[in-house]
Each structure stands twice: as structure tokens, then as C-alpha cells.
């Protein structure tokens, strides 16, 4: 039997983020769902990133510590992971780990938060061969199933990725209004995909997690080959200064274009490059998500 994906994600978070960061995660998440009907649950100490508006000034005065009010969402949130599980997700991330394991960790992180807040989690995933849906449920076992499904789908044997198709499918299939977390890689977003993303964002609250690709010119790549074609990229060519320089330029241009597009839509993006920096990336994503606001 496989070890629990959730336990693994938990262990990784504990490994890479110290306690103060983890409490920030708690605080931020509680304010992802602002503007919704909330029911007061209890008080807890203020943590960095909490909405200042949540501070209970009277209780703070009484206790001498800064306390914030915690709420339970009155209505359970539907958090749908939209994972681009095509073949490219099995390729390598900048830190040398498979991108799929980074995607899995990001998904698991959301899973832990969803479970802690007794929300519901669903999954939409797919590639060129087709897209699939697991409807939202709140059980730990269901979250585990979602992670397992991602792990099984995002392999080198999978069909090539189809981000636009997946976005279009999600626009149809995800009916219940909620939060959609798009976990994809550095694939280019074509106009159709961009339109689908825009439609999705009108229906739902969309966050985007990009799993970065290892660059072909990276020094840590060992006889790299393209995962789609199997074509080897010769070292003498990929490390050539002219190629490296040109690639750096085009990468910066593409990133800038994507950031601009997402900015016009009001979608916050977190770009994951390594397991070690995942938690920080996510906190940054939550902060930006708050500020792009609704």
C-alpha cells in the first residue's frame, strides 16, 4: 500500500516551513473566503497575514494578547482542483524533482486546508485523451482519492497535455460555484484557453498554481530529452551562450505576457519552482489573491 499522500504532504510542509510560516498559512486561508457568510467559532492569537479587520479589540484588551475572531463558513466551500495531468506534468521541475510531485504537493496543501476547514474538495483533470471529474466531498478519504488520482494520471505514459481542452471542460463540468485552483505547468495558454479561463473566472474564484519547467539550458539537466518526442537535446547546443542568452530573453518576455494577461483577469498566480519553497510560494499566492480581491 502507498503511504497516505496527505501525510506525506504534511511531512513535507513540516520539513520545509517552520512554525511561524505554518500559522501564517492558517491565518491566510481563513481570509481566502472573505465576503461570505461566516459563523463565529473562537478566538485565537493574531498571526501575520490575518485581516486586521478580524481583530477582536475588546478581547485583545482583556487578555493583553492580540486576538482575532475565527469563523466557520456557514456554507461549505467547494474547492475544485483543476489539474493539467498531461504527459508534460511528468517532466522535470527546476529543482530536479518531477513536476507531478510538486503538483501533488500543491494539491495536498490545499487538501489539508480544506480538511481543516471542513470544506469540500473536488477534482477535474485530463489530457488530450479526455477530461474527468470527481465531484466535491468532504471526507479525508476523498481528498486522499483525489491525490491518488492525480498521482496516477500525471505520468510519462499519459497522453499529451491539453490545457485549453481542460479549461473548456471545467467550464461545463464544474457546476457549483466555488473556488477553482488551476494547477498547470509552463504550457503556453492559447487564445481559446485564455477565453475559457476568463469564462471560468466569471463563474468561480480562480487561483493559479504554475509548476515551473526545468530549462533545457539548466546545468543540472543530464542529457535532457523532450518528454513528448524523446528527442535528445545535445549538451553542446543547449549550453551554447548564444542559445542560453536568447532563451533567457524569450522566457522573460513570455512570463511578462502571462503575468499581464492574468493581471487583466484578476487571477493571482503562484509559480512553484521547488518543493523547498512551495509553502512560501503558496503564502505569496494567497496574499496576492486577497489583494486582487473581489
Amino acid at each position, binding site marked *: 500500500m502507498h503511504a497516505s499522500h496527505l501525510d506525506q504532504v504534511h511531512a513535507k510542509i513540516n520539513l520545509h516551513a517552520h512554525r511561524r510560516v505554518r500559522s501564517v498559512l492558517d491565518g491566510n486561508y481563513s481570509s481566502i473566503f472573505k465576503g461570505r457568510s461566516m459563523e463565529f467559532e473562537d478566538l485565537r492569537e493574531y498571526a501575520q497575514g490575518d485581516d486586521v479587520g478580524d481583530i477582536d479589540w475588546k478581547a485583545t484588551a482583556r487578555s493583553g494578547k492580540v486576538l482575532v475572531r475565527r469563523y466557520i463558513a456557514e456554507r461549505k466551500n467547494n474547492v475544485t482542483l483543476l489539474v493539467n495531468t498531461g504527459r508534460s506534468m511528468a517532466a522535470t521541475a527546476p529543482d530536479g524533482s518531477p513536476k507531478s510531485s510538486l503538483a501533488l504537493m500543491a494539491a495536498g496543501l490545499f487538501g489539508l486546508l480544506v480538511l481543516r476547514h471542513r470544506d469540500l474538495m473536488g477534482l477535474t483533470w485530463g489530457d488530450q485523451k479526455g477530461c474527468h471529474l470527481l465531484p466535491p466531498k468532504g471526507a479525508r478519504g476523498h481528498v486522499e482519492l483525489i491525490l491518488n488520482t492525480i498521482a496516477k494520471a500525471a505520468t510519462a505514459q499519459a497522453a499529451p497535455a491539453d490545457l485549453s481542452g481542460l479549461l473548456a471542460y471545467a467550464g461545463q463540468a464544474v457546476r457549483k460555484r466555488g473556488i477553482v485552483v488551476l494547477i498547470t505547468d509552463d504550457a503556453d495558454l492559447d487564445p481559446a484557453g485564455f477565453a475559457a479561463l476568463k469564462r471560468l473566472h466569471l463563474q468561480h474564484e480562480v487561483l493559479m498554481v504554475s509548476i515551473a519547467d526545468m530549462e533545457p539550458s539548466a546545468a543540472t539537466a543530464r542529457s535532457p530529452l*523532450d*518528454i513528448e518526442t524523446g528527442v535528445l537535446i545535445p549538451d553542446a547546443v543547449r549550453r551554447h*551562450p*548564444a542559445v542560453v542568452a536568447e532563451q533567457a530573453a524569450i522566457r522573460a518576455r513570455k512570463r511578462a505576457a502571462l503575468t499581464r494577461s492574468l493581471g487583466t483577469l484578476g487571477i493571482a498566480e503562484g509559480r512553484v519552482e521547488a518543493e523547498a519553497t512551495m509553502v512560501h510560494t503558496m503564502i505569496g499566492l494567497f496574499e496576492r489573491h486577497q489583494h486582487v480581491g473581489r
Partner: protein
Amino acid sequence: MTLQAGWAIPVAAGLLAVAAVVGVILARRRRRQGGTALANTSRFLALPAFGRVLRRHAATQVLSGLAVAVLAVGATIVAARPAESETITPEVRNRDVVLCLDVSGSMMEVDADLMESFQNLVKNFDGERVGLSVFNSSSVTLFPLTDDYAFLEEQLGEYARQLDAYWETWEIDGSDGGFDFSGTLIGEEYGSSLIGDGLAMCLDLFDRQNQERARSVVLATDNMVAGAPYLTLPEAAQLAKLKNVRMYAIDPGWGQYWDGWDIPSTYEMPEQAELREAAESTGGEYYTLDDGDSVRKIANSILSQEASLTETTPYRLVHDRAGLGTALAAVGAAGLVLVSALAALGRRRRRSE
């Protein structure tokens, strides 16, 4: 043009096949185990710089491969040892000729001429061993059998010169003119001009008795015996025959003495007849010095008659012709070095930029 080590070609082909199979296996394994799998490389592969560098890289690879191929082909050709072979029938070199000169008083006038005849005779030879012995009452070996023709030429020339000088000074003052006869007059009290003994001693010069060699003696004498030899000329000739040696006789001839006498030039003295019979009894021939062609005839006789006596085994001589293979290998190696040097130069220029 034949290949001395033709098996090298299938071996090289086999090695090539093995290398190809190993290469394919390695490439497949590398693809299966994968290097680092990367996604979304199409942007990268579409870079103009990538295409440019890739083309240059590919050209370098192709040229290197070509150079290695040329090198390998050249090396294979060298390994296969192309060679030209020729069949050689070795020159007959198992003839021994002993020149035997009578230096008795009656002969001194013509000995210089006879020595020159010997010189001319030797000029007809190539590989035959020649020895020289002179005798009067006793015999002296001037040099034993040798095929050192430079030495022969020098020695015979020197003796001819000395004999000439001797005759000239002797005619004037009776001195020896530098020619050293020491040893030829031992036992003079028993007589001089002991032709039979002289011939017998000349026969003694033949060595390698266990080898079947064509042996000839060229005896230059007037056969004017003055004393009591151990062996008469016919007896010595018999000994020669016994030893399977042919005796060729050169007689100075007496034609000059018959001038003014009523004797035909064809008149043969008993001594001359004895000499001719002795020569002919051994299978040899008799000539007089008057016969201008005697030397050539003797040479022809020795070279032709004796050749039939000797057996020679033809053998194959093989010359390696490594030129083409070596040149190809060199061109390949030079090409490889050139391509590598150009690539290294490019890298260095890029670093300094």
C-alpha cells in the same frame, strides 16, 4: 595486388557491427532510462540561435564522423596489408672459379696480359666466387674464393699493374718491379714450372666440399715444365675430374715465335696438345691467348654449362603497399584534429566574448 591479412576486413566489419549494435542498445537504454525529461521545449527548440548552433553542431559531428570513417577505412586497409608479390628465380650463385696463373719465367712476358684476361673474365660474373692462386715451383694463394667484386676488381687490377711493372723493370735491370713472388719458389731445387703440382694446389682452393657447387679452374700456363713435379698435368687433370672440377686452359700460344719460321700458325706443340687434352678430359676447354674471344668464350661456357648443373628454387617476394591506407588514415586523423581544433577555437572565442 593481394591482401596479406584479408581477414582484417571482416574483423573490422564485425567490430563495426558490434559497435553499431552497442551504440543502438546504449541509445535505446538512455532513451528508456531517460536523461532528464523536459517538457515544453518547443519554444526552446524554435529559437533561431538553437537552430543555428544545432546546425553547426551537427556539421561538426558529421565531419568528425566522416573523418573517423576515413581513418577507420585507412586503418583497415593498412591492417589488411595490401601487397604486391613477385616470383624471383634467384641468380645462380653457387659457382666457384679458381684462377690459376703460372708465374714461371717462361710466362712472365704474358702474365700481365693473362691477369687482364682474368679481370675481363671476372667482369662477366655476377655472384660467382672467384679465387686466385699463382704457382711456380710452389703455389701461393693470393686470395681465396670470394664474391666481393670490388675487392676482386681492385686486386686483379693491382696484380696486373705489378706484373706489367715487373716485366718492364726486369727487361731493364732484372729487378722485380714490386711484384712479390715470395712463396712461389719453395723447393726450387727440384725444378720450377711444376704445372701439375700448381693445378693440384689450385684444386685445393675449393671449399664447401659438402655442397654441390659448380667448380671451374681457369689455368693459364704454357705447360713448359722444368723439373720433376709430384703430379704430371694429366694426373692433375684426372684429380680435377675426380673432384668434379672443370679445367679451362688459356695458353699464351706460340704464334709470335713462329714469325719468320716456316711453321703454320695452327701448329701445335706437344705441350699444347697435352694441355688441351687435359682441359678437355675434365669437360673444360682450351684456348690460346691469340684467340681474342677466349675470355668471352670461357665466361659463356662457365655461365651456361654450369647453370644446368645447379638447381635453384624460385621464391616469392612480397612487398607491402601500405601507402594508400596510411594516406587515408592520415587524412582522417588530420581531419579529426582540424574539426576538433576548429570547435575548440569556437569555444575559446565564445568564452572570451
